[in-house]
Each structure stands twice: as structure tokens, then as C-alpha cells.
């Protein structure tokens, strides 16, 4: 096939909603964009273990502790699926982690906010996982097969986590005065960062048009954000919490909620590394990696020794 026919073949698949698979030809930019997006997503899962991990040892009941620990562990699992999906595009996990640790690769900015009370476990599950699901469900039908399949598994678990988060908030909201305050305080702190998770406004979004064409992205940032707000405002009402946005108002005509201006300065500032916990999160990952170096070396050395011994045995036996 000619280069042109490769491209045509690729485009046909896109047009017919046929999955692109690892061994298929694909444009370099498609590959690069996917590597960037999938690894960023994988990093987000791994870094995302930290803010919730912060409350495992302090969970207020044994049941909540078990549920939280299982949830954070699931996030590690998601990271694993996603690193594997990215590896099919010709990058190793170590390369991706190297980019994370050097600061070259990004992860979702939301994880640069601190978890200050137990209610944050509710808010993170409800809002952050909720927003993630909005972003991720369409990716179950994304054009790159391994990524789409990973997202199917991820989304199934995420919606479970989102329900658990909402349940924590509900319990607090129907609890003592202090618990109600705790829940409202968490909502106040997490609301705006959560709706920033959908990324910049469509007008300011750098990669969107091409990603839509490649079916890596299937809805615009603003569409998803609006959908999330519409759903979440109703849930907040249900449990008697107040969304911290005085401009929030149902727009009968549009059939959507209008909402206040987003502080994009804060968004870009956190992306640039100035969030409350950027340094701590990155340092935690770097420490885990650096302190684990001798362990990985040992595991590698042992597996090589085993291989050598097996080969020697085979030779001796021959």
C-alpha cells in the first residue's frame, strides 16, 4: 500500500467506527496524542491514589476504611490497565514514569488539592469520580481499541466509586451539625476544581478539534461540563447541600443550569505547578520510585538468575 492508501485505510476505520489496533498503521500524531493522553490518564490514577490514601489510616469506621482502601487500590489497577494500553503504542512504563517524575508529563490537576477532612473522601468520590466518569464514558467508544477496552473496565469501577462517595456525603449531610458542616465545607472546596476537570472552555482548548476527528474525544469540554453540572446540582439538592455558586440558576429555555464564571487563573496556575499540593504529590511519587529502586533491581537480578539456572539445567540435561 502507498502512504496515501494507509491513511485512507485508517480514515475508513475511523469513519466506520472500527477500532484501531496496535499493529495497524496510524498517523504519527495520532500515536503521539494517544500516548500523551493515555499516559496522562494513567499518571492521574497513580497520583490520584495519594489524596485519598491520606485518609486510609484515619477512616472513622472499619467498614469505611475497607471501602476506601479497596477504592484506592482500584485506582492503582486502573493505572495498570492504562499503562498497558499505552505500552501497545510503543512506549515503556519506565519511560512514562520518567516523564511523570521529571515533571514533563502532566496528571489531572484535581489531585493537587489537599484532603483536609473525612468529608473530602465523600466529595472526591462524588465530584471527582463523577466528573471523571463524564469524561471517560465516551472513551469506552474511543477509536483506539486497547484504550477503549481499558476504559470499559475503568468506568465500571468508577461508577461504583462515585456511588460510594455520594453515600459518604449523604450520611454526613443527614448527621450531626458538625458532619453537615464538614460535608458543606468539602463541597465548597471541591466544587470549582471539579468543574475545571473538564478542561478549558472549548474556545481555548488546544487539541480538541483534531482529537474529535480522531474519535479520541467524543464530546467537547463545555458539553461534558454542562452535563456534569446539571446532574450534580440535583444530587446536591437531594441531600440538602448548597453548591457554592451564587450565579447558579436553572435556565428554562436552554434546559440547563447557568453557572458562574470559572476562575481560569487558578486553573492554569495549578497546571503550572502552583496548586496547594503539586510539590508534595510529585515528591511522594518520586520517593516511592527512588526508594523502590533497590527492590526492582533485586527482582530483576533474581529473575535473571532463575533464567540462567533454567538454561544451564537445560544444557546440562541435553
Amino acid at each position, binding site marked *: 500500500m502507498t502512504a496515501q492508501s494507509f491513511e485512507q485505510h485508517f480514515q475508513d476505520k475511523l469513519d466506520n467506527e472500527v477500532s484501531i489496533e496496535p499493529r495497524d498503521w496510524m498517523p504519527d500524531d495520532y500515536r503521539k496524542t494517544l500516548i500523551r493522553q493515555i499516559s496522562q490518564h494513567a499518571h492521574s490514577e497513580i497520583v490520584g491514589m*495519594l489524596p485519598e*490514601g491520606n485518609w486510609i489510616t484515619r477512616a*472513622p469506621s472499619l467498614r469505611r476504611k475497607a471501602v476506601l482502601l479497596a477504592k484506592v487500590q482500584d485506582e*492503582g489497577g486502573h493505572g495498570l490497565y492504562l499503562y498497558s494500553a499505552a505500552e501497545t503504542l510503543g512506549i515503556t512504563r519506565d519511560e512514562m514514569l520518567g516523564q511523570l517524575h521529571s515533571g514533563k508529563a502532566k496528571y489531572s490537576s484535581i489531585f493537587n488539592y489537599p484532603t483536609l477532612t*473525612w468529608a473530602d473522601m465523600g466529595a472526591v468520590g462524588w465530584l471527582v469520580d463523577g466528573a471523571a466518569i463524564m469524561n471517560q464514558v465516551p472513551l469506552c467508544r474511543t477509536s483506539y481499541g486497547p484504550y477503549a477496552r481499558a476504559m470499559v473496565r475503568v468506568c465500571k469501577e468508577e461508577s461504583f466509586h462515585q456511588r460510594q462517595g455520594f453515600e459518604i456525603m449523604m450520611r454526613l449531610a443527614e448527621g450531626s451539625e*458538625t458532619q453537615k458542616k464538614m460535608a458543606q465545607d468539602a463541597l465548597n472546596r471541591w466544587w470549582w476544581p471539579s468543574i475545571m476537570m473538564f478542561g478549558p472552555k472549548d474556545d481555548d482548548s488546544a487539541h480538541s478539534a483534531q482529537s474529535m476527528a480522531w474519535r479520541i474525544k467524543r464530546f467537547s469540554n463545555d458539553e461534558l461540563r454542562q452535563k456534569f453540572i446539571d446532574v450534580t446540582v440535583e444530587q446536591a439538592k437531594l441531600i440538602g447541600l448548597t453548591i457554592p455558586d451564587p450565579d447558579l440558576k436553572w435556565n428554562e429555555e436552554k434546559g440547563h443550569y447557568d453557572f458562574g464564571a470559572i476562575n481560569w487563573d487558578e486553573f492554569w496556575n495549578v497546571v503550572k505547578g502552583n496548586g496547594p499540593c503539586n510539590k508534595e504529590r510529585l515528591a*511522594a511519587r518520586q520517593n*516511592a520510585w527512588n526508594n523502590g529502586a*533497590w*527492590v526492582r533491581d533485586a527482582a530483576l537480578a533474581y529473575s535473571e538468575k532463575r533464567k540462567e539456572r533454567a538454561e544451564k539445567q537445560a544444557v546440562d540435561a541435553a
Partner: protein
Amino acid sequence: MSTQHSNVSTYQPVNLLYYTLQLADTALINGHRLSEWCGHGPILEQDIAISNIALDHLGAARSLYQYAAEQFNNLNEADKKNAFSSPLLQQVVGAIDEDDLAYLRDGWDYRNLLLVEQPNQDWAYTIARSFYLDTFNFFFYRELTQSKDKSLAAVAEKSLKEVTYHIRWSSEWIIRLGDGTAESKERIQNALNEYWRFTGEMTHATEVDNAMHAAEIGVDLAKVKANWEERIAKVAEEATLTLPTGGWMQEGGKEGRHTEHLGYVLAEMQFMQRAYPNMEW
């Protein structure tokens, strides 16, 4: 679960409560330590594995605390008053539950093995601690499936499946580190040496252990000890490591005398229940 020990003659309700708590507390504190690794492991797959093991211990602890709470609630008033010295636990109105036992007991009412409250330090110390404990748990719970107490036997049955995985996991890591690099060998050897002094307590019978064994509720620790020694020796040999022998053993955990580490574990673990008392979560 219901209490099934009416046919046992040498049995005292408080001893069974303490025996159950020895197991529950060891599972909880060990799970706590292992859970501290979550998000900080040296390899992502191992981060997930160790969190999974922590979850197993936490699950076992919950079953045992539920059973212990049931026992406590059935004690007569005098035994109830004397069972624990923790003031907030004594103030619980009505029946207590698993969370009261975990979050309102002070250190001196905790009966976990000293081994499990030792800090993680690094992967080698964590593996050494798990290796000694998992091997003990494997043989202990295998015996406990034969307990005349049907509730403990049921917990043992379930735990045994999990412990079978744990012992394989930690033994493999002992071998991998022992037969890995020079650095890993030195680290794991040091860790095994350091934690050796906490192993005697596992199989050294307290009064409670003896009473429960006599009642055919608890297990024969001498038998567990023999199995434990044989198994760890085998694994150490394959790992090209040398296990310590003899030496002075630290004890007291099963009777509420702990190392200085437990206080810090409890301060952190129990903070919410104490700062926000009498709330539902």
C-alpha cells in the same frame, strides 16, 4: 455468628473474648501497617498486592471484632466492667460494636503481637515482618479450623484461603530479596535479624492461650511452632539467608504490654472517633 461453646467445660467467657481480640487486634494492626504502603509501593503491581493483603487482614479483623462484640455484650455486668480499662469504651451506652472495639480501646487493652506494630521502615522490613507473621498465621489458622468454637472455626476457614496466598507472596519476596542483589540480601538479612526477637511471642502460650487450648477452642501453639520453624528454615535456605536462632524474645503484646510504636498507631487510627464522638459515618 453465634457462640457455640456450651459443651466446653474449662471455658471462661472473658478468656474467649481476649483470645478473639488477640487475633482481631493482630489482624487490624498488621492491616494498618500494610495499608500505609498504599500509593507508595516500589512497583505498581506490588502496591496493589500489598493493599490487597491489607484488605484481607482488615476483613478478618472485622469478622473477629463482630464476634468479640457479641461476646462482650453477653458478659455479666461485673465481667463487662473489668474486661477493659479504656474509659470511653466503658461509657458506651447499650451494646458495643466492631468500631467501638477498634476505636475506643487504649493501648493497654490491645492484645496484638508486638511484631505487627513495628513500623514499615522499608520493603525489606515489611517483607520480614510479613514472612514471620504469614507463616505463623498459616499454621495457626489451619489448626483453628478444628476449633470447637464454630465462629472461630468459620473465620479460620475463610482466613486460611487468604493466608495461603499471603505466605506464598511473602516467601517469594524473601527468596527474591535474599537471592537478588548484594544490597537486597544485606537488607533482608538485617531485617530478619532485627525482627527475630518479636517471633517468640507468637508461639509462646499465655494463660489465655492455655485456657483456650485446654477448652479445645484455641490451638496447640507447640505444634504451630514446630511447623513454623520448619517452614521458615526451608524458605530461608532457598533464599540463601541465615535465620537467627535462640536469643532473647520480646513479649507482652498479647497481654496488653506494647512497644512505644502502638501509641502512635492508635493516635492516628482512632483520631476521628475520638474527636467526633457518637456519630454515624
